[in-house]
């Protein structure tokens, strides 16, 4: 009965306050790298939030979510390369392309379930990877450098690092709001019902296939936006950003943070990427620590960070 002051809410509020003030600190400490790192963290957190919609709430274990990062990124990259620098064209195209891809592979993949669903989403993502790696005109395997970031009207200038950081943060908050509204709506409840018992949901008259497909498309579109941001952030797109291990990273963020909690993936993304950064500062062989650590989280900390914060409250 602690109301709004649960450990989870306090940590979330502190995290967002820190994120809001970070550019200020980076400015005074003259630490440009910190700003770059956290811009990246925020973008990937958004991708993780989108994955959580299908993974955590829908119970759809997609192993191909990085494909949308690539598709969104390449939509920006290719349009920039072809002389269309306007963000008003690039971003809608990125979203539409991701939505279309999600619609096609979702329609096919959702016919299967369990391990087969994991594998078929993986296979489709690999297909997208090979298509893009085969685009010789756009750099193929080597990737494509983006000469000019997306252009918007006068005051908005994405090359300004602080402005771009706040834009990403605002979009992340928007994504969280969208996710929160979605999972608490009738639509979201139907999706969560289908996760627990698909047969029963169908028996009481919900066309779960269509519900899940819509959810799948929303998640893909949102991740496509993260891809467009990532392309602007790195000024570079390459097939590596959609390789299957990237999808694995996104799953780690979601599970580490806590599946089925709206804010969880943000915790997960911050924790994973800060941990990576810290460990790689300690030793060149940081993955030898990260790997077993993940295993320990899987074995002993189910519910992830969000679950741990929830436990504190209960005693």
């Amino acid at each position, binding site marked *: 009965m602690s109301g709004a002051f649960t450990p989870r809410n306090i940590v979330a509020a502190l995290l967002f306050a820190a994120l809001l003030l970070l550019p200020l600190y980076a400015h005074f400490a003259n630490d440009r790298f910190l700003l770059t790192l956290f811009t990246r963290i925020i973008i990937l957190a958004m991708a993780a939030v989108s994955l959580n919609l299908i*993974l955590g709430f829908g119970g759809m*274990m997609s*192993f191909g979510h990085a494909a949308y990062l690539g598709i969104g990124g390449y939509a920006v990259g290719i349009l920039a390369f072809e002389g269309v620098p306007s963000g008003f064209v690039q971003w809608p195209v990125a979203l539409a392309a991701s939505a279309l891809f999600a619609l096609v592979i979702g329609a*096919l993949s959702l*016919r*299967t379930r*369990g*391990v*087969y669903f*994991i*594998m*078929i989403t*993986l*296979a*489709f993502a*690999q*297909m997208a990877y*090979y*298509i893009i*790696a*085969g*685009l*010789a*005109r756009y750099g193929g395997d080597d990737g494509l450098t983006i000469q000019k970031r997306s252009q918007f009207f006068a005051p908005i200038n994405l090359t300004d690092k602080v402005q771009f950081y706040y834009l990403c943060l605002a979009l992340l908050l928007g994504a969280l709001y969208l996710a929160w509204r979605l999972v608490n709506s009738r639509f979201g409840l139907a999706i969560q019902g289908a996760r627990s018992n698909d047969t029963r949901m169908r028996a009481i008259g919900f066309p779960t296939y269509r519900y899940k497909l819509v959810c799948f498309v929303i998640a893909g579109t949102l991740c496509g936006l993260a891809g467009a941001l990532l392309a602007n952030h790195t000024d570079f797109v390459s097939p590596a950003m959609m390789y*299957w*291990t990237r999808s*694995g990273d996104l*799953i*780690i963020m979601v*599970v580490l943070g806590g*599946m089925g909690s709206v804010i969880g993936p943000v915790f997960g993304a911050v924790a994973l990427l800060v941990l990576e950064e810290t460990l790689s500062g300690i030793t060149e*062989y*940081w*993955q*030898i620590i*990260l*790997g*077993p*650590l*993940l*295993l320990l*989280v*899987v*074995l002993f900390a*189910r519910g992830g960070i969000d679950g741990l914060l929830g436990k504190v409250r209960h005693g």
Partner: protein
Amino acid sequence: MTLFIEQCLNGLQFGLLLFLLAAGLTLVFGIMDLVNLAHGSLYMIGAYFAATFAAWTGSFVLGALLALVATLIVGMAVEVIVMRRLYGRDHLDHVLGTFGLILFFDEAVRLIWGPEGLSLPLPSWLNTAITILPGFDYSAYKFSIIVVSLVVAGFLYVLVMRTRVGMLIRAGASNREMVGALGVNIKLLYTLVFGLGAALAGLAGLMQAPILTVQIGMGENILILAFVITVIGGIGSIRGALVAALLVGFIDTLGRSYLPDFLRMMFSKEVAATAAPALSSMLIYLLMAIVLVVKPEGLFSAAGK
């Protein structure tokens, strides 16, 4: 024509190699219901062990045998230390836990053997061409891969279909609880099956080692292929894995060698040159997508779930 025969043999060789990898994966899948992403790491470790032991002993065959034993031991240790705790958990936990294992193994290999790849030189008696048909020569080593794989496949068939252990494996695949209830030592059976799968993966890795370089991450690419095969063949079915592995081996090899010419007949040279590499890499994923849409349980579904 000789080129076509050669490509077919290459396809057969690649397919059989993939079968060794996929057989272990599908056994573990089918019996323990475990999604093991780290299977590719065992493949990599087999190759590294072989390169090291061959350099120590100075003999390719001796090195390979030692590597096989070592991979078997590593596999069983991994099962006892980690995998055992993952049975009965969510598939997502498997994906995540074994993903952690991949990171660990990749980094451990980098730590022990360094970031540069190793090479496993072939002994001179294998590094020649032999005449298979009059006027048709083929690499002796690739031919021996085909022979060894066929022997191992035969051994696997006898083991699974004709022995008591095999009977228990098959029983475990169709109903785990019942086998345990009948007093079979399930834990030991699982450790053995996992070790067997690891040894098969190690064998595939060490046989592939002289053809490709031994390097970190070599397991990841081929792991996805092995997964595609188990899914096409039907999870838990060794027969399905064999059929699917050969299918994938042929389609991949023939696609890579003939698709460019084929596309050039229909489209302009430029289009063909652009589309062919991407399309040939995609072919097997396309095959998998089609199979899953038509038969969502794979071609030969073992468990009647």
